């Protein structure tokens, strides 16, 4: 989960590409700002509700909706699986199998739990079965409980699942993102940092930056678009090609 409180932001130009981005503080320092109170999110569709919408579309036969869930959760699922399986290639295979199992089991998903909790549980069970099939010892439930998957997102304590080749690629991606963000105008950089690192709502960011919510919406979008423009050549897909 993203941090919900204000972090103290210090001026650090990212030196190590793989490290999380730490935003430069605005003039006067964002660290001095008091944390804002949480405001009601009436009428807004939460992350879980968006997932539920995508699940329901997939249940009605829309595979594109499930593709969106795959692209959203693939990295997180792989990071979770890295706690059970060591080999990156195996992690990828098990993640793929877990997604296919989840897709086949979609008619049974009733929405009682969040989609990602359900998916992560499938992922862990798939990984355990995979290890048992190979004659390796699967972790016991006390070593890893799939229930904790709900709160799993923190990078701390996770093994690096990169191979030397993929580590280079991974560093390049992180470097591109960090460079692009560092090059953003300050108001865009501040807006996207407060959103992505501090997990603040648009309303809270608007209060901090003393601007209308519509401006926050626009700034975050422009920041994302500026960074995405740098990433698109690396993605290497044309518009007419699937993905």
């Amino acid at each position, binding site marked *: 989960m993203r941090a919900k409180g204000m972090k103290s932001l210090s001026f650090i130009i990212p030196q190590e590409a793989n490290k999380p981005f730490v935003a430069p503080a605005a003039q006067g320092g964002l660290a001095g700002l008091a944390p804002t109170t949480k405001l009601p999110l009436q009428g807004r569709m939460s992350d879980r509700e968006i997932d539920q919408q995508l699940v329901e579309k997939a249940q009605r036969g*829309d595979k594109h909706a499930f593709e969106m869930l795959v692209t959203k959760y693939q990295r997180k699922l792989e990071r979770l699986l890295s706690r059970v399986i060591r080999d990156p290639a195996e992690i990828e295979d098990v993640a793929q199998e877990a997604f296919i199992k989840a897709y*086949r089991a979609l008619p049974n998903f009733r929405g009682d739990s969040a989609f990602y909790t359900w998916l992560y549980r499938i992922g862990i069970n798939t990984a355990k079965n995979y290890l048992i099939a190979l004659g390796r010892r699967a972790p016991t439930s006390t070593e890893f409980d799939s229930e904790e998957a709900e709160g799993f997102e923190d990078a701390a304590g996770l093994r690096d699942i990169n191979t030397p080749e993929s580590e280079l690629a991974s560093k390049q991606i992180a470097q591109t993102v960090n460079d692009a963000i560092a090059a953003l105008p300050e108001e865009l950089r501040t807006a996207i940092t407060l959103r992505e690192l501090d997990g603040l709502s648009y309303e809270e960011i608007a209060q901090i930056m003393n601007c209308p919510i519509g401006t926050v919406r626009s700034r975050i979008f422009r920041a994302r678009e500026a960074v995405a423009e740098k*990433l698109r050549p690396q993605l290497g897909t044309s518009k007419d090609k699937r993905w």
Partner: protein
Amino acid sequence: MTQEISSLMDGELGAQEAAHALQGCCASEEHKRTWYLYHVIGDSMRGQGPRRLSLPGGVLDALHAQPTVLAPRRKLLETTFARVSLAAAASVATVGVVGWIGTQGGQVPEPVIAKNANLQPVANTVSQPALDVQDYLAVHRQMPPPELYRQVNNRAAVPAR
């Protein structure tokens, strides 16, 4: 549309706008790429970037090889909203009925039949047979003689001096 995708990811769209944005995302490969890249940006900023910048082609190919799942539509009562609505409606109805009874002051309305002039009220007294005098005297004779009764004084007893 891309701005809508950005707001959608942040949970900052209303239900209708979000449904529209999701529809647009699912319908366009370009928008799906945007959805992917925007997530990569957030993950990278949090130090959880991908190992390589490519869409999960293996998963998607395997997904497209799968027969399309079609979940049966859930019955009305299986949805949470319907269950909550039904429970709320039942509660309101109960409160309404109890409240209505309370406002009537607990009086039971007169039966309609009593207002019908053509009907005669039925006597609710049961006719007793006339008491025979001889029987009455016979009962009194069976009573004990007066001397057997102890006289009762209703004045408090005065203690002896």
